[in-house]
């Protein structure tokens, strides 16, 4: 764990009070706020030069919205970590953002300590889940397994292993990783890996779907690589 290492963070929120508050919290904790932005357009134009390690992002921002920004920044720089901060917790938006590549989600009422901890953890490659997000992700896997796969589909519908389902259910029931590790008699790191896998499969599936959609629409010329 890289405790105390200075992180390059970018904050995107259309609410000035929030943007400055979050930026100040991060700076006081010793991080560098390399850019802020008030809407999706600003965020995307400042992102390439700022090169943040972590993007703290409000979903309800003027166009393009948080989901679109997440997808675009992760496409430009797969190493960036996106932490979604949402006030209203519009559930479908949160799920879309996670599928687009966000690896952390917090409601805005989370405490400052929770926010700093979450930034640190997503920067370390960990996933920051709320029980609410775990419930959404569980629901999404069930929904995908309900939809009969198209006969020509060569990519598998993502599925959770029994262990992953078990871990995700416990997260959704509000257990901490530590409690889960104790209950299942596995290591803390293993719990984290299981949780990460649930998101990775979903994001991979989402990317494959997007690429296939682009190919079908004849837009593949615009796809880099």
């Amino acid at each position, binding site marked *: 764990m890289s405790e105390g290492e200075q992180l390059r963070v970018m904050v995107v929120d259309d609410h000035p009070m929030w943007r400055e508050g979050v930026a100040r919290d991060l700076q006081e904790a010793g991080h560098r706020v390399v850019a802020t932005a008030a809407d999706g357009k600003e965020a995307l134009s400042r992102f390439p030069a700022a090169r943040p390690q972590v993007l703290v992002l409000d979903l309800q921002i003027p166009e393009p919205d948080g989901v679109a920004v997440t997808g675009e920044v992760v496409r430009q720089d797969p190493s960036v970590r996106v932490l979604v901060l949402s*006030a209203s917790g519009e559930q479908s938006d949160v799920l879309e953002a996670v599928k687009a590549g966000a690896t952390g989600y917090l409601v*805005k*009422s989370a405490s400052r300590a929770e926010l700093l901890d979450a930034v640190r953890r997503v920067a370390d490659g960990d996933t920051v889940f709320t*029980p*609410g997000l775990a*419930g959404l992700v*569980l*629901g999404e896997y069930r929904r995908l397994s309900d939809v009969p796969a198209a006969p020509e589909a060569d990519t598998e519908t993502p599925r959770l292993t029994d262990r992953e389902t078990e871990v995700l259910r416990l997260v959704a029931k*509000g257990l901490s990783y530590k409690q889960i590790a104790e209950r299942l008699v596995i290591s803390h790191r293993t719990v984290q890996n299981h949780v990460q896998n649930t998101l990775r499969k979903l994001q991979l599936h989402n990317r494959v779907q997007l690429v296939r959609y682009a190919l079908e629409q004849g837009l593949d010329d615009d796809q880099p690589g």
Partner: protein
Amino acid sequence: MSGEPAVRRSLTHVPVQDLLLRAMAVLRVIVLANSLVLYAMRFEDYPRPLLGWAVMALLVGWTLVSVWAYAAPERRRAPLLVGDLGVAVLTIALTPLVKGAGPSATLPGFYVMCAVLSWAVVWRWQGGLFAAVAVSITDVSIRLEFTQQNYGNIFLLVIGGAVIGFLSALLQDTAAQRDAAERAAAAAAERQRLSRVVHDGVLQVLALVQRRGPELGPDGMELGRLAGEQESRLRGLVQQGSRELVAPLGERDLVELLGELESPHVHVATPATPAVLPAETASELLAAVEACLSNVRHHVGRDADAWVLLEELPDRWVVSVRDDGPGIPAGRLDDSASEGRLGVQQSIVGRLVDLGGSAQVRSAPGQGTEWELSVPRHTSP
């Protein structure tokens, strides 16, 4: 049957009336051609063929004028309609002069129905009935004998005028209601959009107060707590608002119902898609969840955290309610039952069994308590 209501109607119901009158213009041309052809085949036998041609010219001229005049809503007023009926009545009345007394058919023939139907479209069943009666009286007055055939025609014309008028009114009213409903829906959508923007702002401020409050000392701590409660209630309302109308009548969306339970101490996790259950099943399940939560407040503490998780399995719905309290020592549930405090078991297990489902509780000292309530899906009511 005055002009004013007709104008008001024609302005509010433009599209339907326009369509009907456009169809009427086509009909007018067809029946005019019919009358012209019939006259051209017979005119040589009539005493005054020239007057007859003059009548035909009048019909052609009036057809051109009326097709133009009926095309615009602001011209569909009394002068046009009275003129339309006047032409019909006049041409019928002139028939004996052209053909001699007691003609078998009138000069305009079927053309008269255009006036009747136009009256019906613009002035509804009263207009259609009035115009049909006026045409019929004129028609009867030029006949020497009243045949079965004449009676049939008149009967059809009068009934037709009234029925078409009634249907046209119905169509226009339905269209007006549809327009009103569309306007209301658009207004509601706009209100919802605006309220979402407003709510988002309010939520941001409440969340900020909640975060910053505790740094301002004890009063700030209290402020922060209050803001937090309001924040989660409003968040619940906003999420609920974005889900309304998902469940059909007689069914409820369990995701929405459980979402309303969210508070600073109750954390609700659900799928993003609605969970639609029969209304009774949903409210029984909700009542069971509330009983679990009230149990948490009683036995763990008022400010104890509780987690509610809704899962959709292929064959059943599962709602878990968990707390981080001291747990219930083995046997305590049975004890409370034998002590007469039937609250827990009776109300929760009983409700679930009644629904064809089951309720299980898992607990161990120091590991909290977890209820798992499950209800089969596709239960036939």
